[in-house]
């Protein structure tokens, strides 16, 4: 208790330690990039850099929402399949119902928000442990995606503008040669929005407050339940956006794709220095975390490392990141 109060009394130290983890993560990312660049000429190409950016986009956006939830000391296991459900919803609206693409995009994002709000109510109102509640919604969303799609992928062949909106390159049209697909800009845009929400708004402040001491927040008059539900809904909105992005990327809504993506997102968040015990974390860290995973995966793939070992290495990196987090805490005390 003593040390806990002590930590509360040293908010500056918290911020600084956060920055150290981010610096470490960033250093690790640079190290990975330098290492692969030296060992493999194929890695250094512009095309491959674009490949890494695209590979980061979807999981990165999922991880942004997950960051908020984890800062409240919660967890959302459903984001992977909520992403799927949102993708399928976009497909149903655009292809099956023939409505305009922007309506489909909105429907996808809102679907995520609605399921996220459902998670929030289960956790905040019905007091279910977040792990269990979101494990339940994981399966609900997974099943609903199959039901709504009719067990088959929904293609966007009739609406090429949807794929083009995200996989085309606005930047390349302005600056020839710089063909960075819009989906990457969407990720960075979403990251900026997330960083502003977390750093500059009351939602962000309460997100930290819920994670560091929920009881204190409640006693100081914060409507804890409402804000908590809001955080899960926000996480769902990001998952919905991720769903729209993956649908555009594979030019189809794949009803069985997405299970397991939640773990990748959670790994990105943790590597980025967000503590699973809540109260601290940052969007910048999460973005770096997401890039560490995708760059590592890409680099190992480029070097033709056997696949089973690629998985092992990714696992080791996560364990490593969490251990760093523990080391850092110990030093603070």
């Amino acid at each position, binding site marked *: 208790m003593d040390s806990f109060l002590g930590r509360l009394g040293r908010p500056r130290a918290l911020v600084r330690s956060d920055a150290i983890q981010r610096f470490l993560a960033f250093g690790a990312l640079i190290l990975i990039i330098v290492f692969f660049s030296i060992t493999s000429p*194929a*890695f250094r190409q512009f*095309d491959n850099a674009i490949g890494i950016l695209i590979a980061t986009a*979807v999981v990165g956006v999922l991880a942004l929402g997950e960051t908020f939830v984890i800062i409240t000391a919660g967890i959302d296991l459903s984001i992977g399949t909520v992403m799927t459900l949102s993708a399928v919803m976009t497909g149903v609206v655009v292809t099956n119902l023939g409505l305009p693409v922007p309506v489909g995009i909105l429907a996808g994002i809102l679907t995520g928000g609605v399921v996220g709000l459902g998670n929030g109510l289960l956790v905040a109102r019905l007091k279910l442990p977040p792990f269990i509640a979101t494990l339940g919604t994981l399966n609900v969303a997974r099943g609903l995606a199959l039901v709504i799609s009719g067990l088959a992928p929904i293609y966007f062949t009739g609406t090429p503008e949807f794929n083009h909106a995200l996989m085309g390159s606005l930047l390349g049209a302005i600056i020839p040669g710089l063909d960075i697909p819009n989906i990457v800009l969407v990720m960075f845009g979403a990251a900026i929005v997330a960083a502003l929400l977390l750093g500059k708004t009351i939602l962000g402040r309460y997100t930290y407050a819920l994670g560091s001491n929920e009881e204190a927040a409640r006693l100081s008059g914060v409507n804890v339940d409402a804000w908590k539900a809001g955080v899960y809904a926000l996480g769902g909105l990001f998952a919905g956006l991720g769903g729209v992005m993956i649908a555009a990327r594979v030019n*189809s809504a794949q009803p*069985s*794709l997405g299970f397991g993506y939640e773990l990748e997102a959670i790994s990105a968040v943790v590597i980025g220095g967000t503590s699973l015990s809540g109260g601290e974390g940052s969007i910048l860290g999460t973005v770096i975390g997401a890039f560490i995973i995708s760059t590592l995966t890409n680099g190992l793939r480029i070097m033709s490392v056997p696949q089973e070992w690629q998985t092992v*290495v990714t696992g080791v990196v996560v364990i490593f990141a969490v251990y760093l987090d523990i080391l850092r805490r110990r030093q603070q005390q």
Partner: protein
Amino acid sequence: MRSKRFFTILGAAALVLAACSANTGASGAASGGGTAKSYIPVVSKGFQHQFWQAVKKGAEQEAAKENVTVNFEGPENESQVDKQMEMLQAEYDKHPAAVCFAALDSQAAIPLLQKFKDAKIPVIGFDSGVDSDIPVTTAATDNIAAAGTAADKLADAIGGSGKVGLIVHDQTSRTGIDRRDGFLKEMKSKYPNVQIIGPQYGGGDQLKSADLAKAMIQANPDIKGFFGANEGSAIGVINAVTELNKSGKIKVVGYDSGQAQIDAINNGLMLGAITQNPIGIGEQCVKAAVKAIKGESLPKTIDTGFFWYDKSNINDPEIQAVLYK
């Protein structure tokens, strides 16, 4: 103190990475494209399943023979369309001499395959291949011929006349359509006295297929045989026959392998089954890639062959090599 730890940790990270690179130095060098050996990635629909491991084995055997380097990879499960595309993209960045590819979703892969085509890198389809004209050839099982053989074996076993049931996994997939049509065509043209009940579709689900088979047996007590067109369908039929105590009285022919079918054949519940030749698929696709690199012309499809196996040959090394449990 803090910075000391920091550097220790960075150092450790560097060690981990160095260890990885040491492990794979050989293949890494080959993939650089600087050496004389052609590099041919094989991007499959999976890598953990026994079937895919057998394809991998075939591809690697052929690569050793042709003196080329292959790299076999595939996503963890057959729904990960985006992961497969990331793999294909990474392979494109390595400037391979050719690529072997079995698409999880042809639609999603076509823009990327177009890049291969534009860069004049030949694409060889295998297994289900790619639904497009980009691949120069596709190495796959001739499911029509294989199902025809199943029809011959079943008709022989029932003496060329009587009722047989047909249970297929689905009516939309390429394999479902080909196996159904191959079986029906052979039966109708060669065995006019055989009456076919069905086809019924069980989604490849063992329970569903079992229920379908049971209903067919109830409605046709004089039914003499069954063909289950994939592993799940065949196991479903075996379960139905066992549950209704008709084993021995009804001849069952299956497809692919798996422990349940292998056991059923060994203890006489099942007459035999068709197995594809995953090793042959791996060999043929790499062989075709090498030919494509040399600029030789290739047929649009390459038949990778199949085997009939029953109690008499199930333990032959040739059969054992292509069966999975």
